[in-house]
């Protein structure tokens, strides 16, 4: 039931969180020699989520009829890609702090937008329940 209320936003939030983690890791390793910056391909990850949603294929196993159907934690590892640096550095590190900062900010904004969507869903349902 829960996935029909929040729709794709539930999955989007998981992917956003995972992407934030990857970008934070890039920024943390900005001075580590031979570290290669990575990123999650959001488009691919969300289109796969959309697909499994439209086919209503919940990937949580139900062993009891009263179990609630839902998604397992979104695995985003298959969508991890390496970033191509614009200016290669001597120590083999491909983190460009300005690029990563921009991506992190972008991801935070979109995370906030997703939260906003979920919030408005909740208040919509609350309004309907109260008969306002």
């Amino acid at each position, binding site marked *: 039931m829960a996935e029909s209320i929040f729709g794709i936003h539930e999955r989007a939030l998981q992917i956003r969180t995972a992407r934030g983690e990857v970008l*934070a890791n890039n920024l*943390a390793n900005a001075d580590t020699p031979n570290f290669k910056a990575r990123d999650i391909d959001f488009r691919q990850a969300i289109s796969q989520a959309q697909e499994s949603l439209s086919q209503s294929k919940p990937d949580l196993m139900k062993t009891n009829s009263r179990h609630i159907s839902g998604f397992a934690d979104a695995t985003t590892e298959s969508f991890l890609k390496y970033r191509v640096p614009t200016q290669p550095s001597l120590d083999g590190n491909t983190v460009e702090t300005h690029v990563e900062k921009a991506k992190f900010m972008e991801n935070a904004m979109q995370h906030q937008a997703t939260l906003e969507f979920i919030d408005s869903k909740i208040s919509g349902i609350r309004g309907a329940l109260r008969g306002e």
Partner: protein
Amino acid sequence: MSMFNILDISASAMHAQTVRLNTVASNMANADSVSSNKDETYRSKQPVFQTILDGATNEPKGGVRIKEIVESQAPLKMEYNPNHPMANEEGYIYRPNVNVVEEMANMLSASRSYETNIEVMNTSKQLLLRTIQLGK
């Protein structure tokens, strides 16, 4: 939730940058510590950063750690100064191989990286609080 992971990642990076600032401070403080023989002379200390890897998969797990602190192999500066109290029999003193300009650049880089990680932490905190406020 796994969002708390971001805070761990940033915290590990802040710790690593603090160690780097510490070595810079140590190097700068000892930049003029002369001595009368090669072995006793202070050598510039440099931290080596390493990504924290998952033991089983060898994939980056998130965060950074200090692998080791190495002593610079750059040659010591020998100076002929027979009037110096630390001069040896030949009249030479040894100065540390600390490059002050390099250390200044190192310090700026470390403090900028530290700031970046604070910003990441702040943003994550806001998102977490926003998530907690959902539906209120």
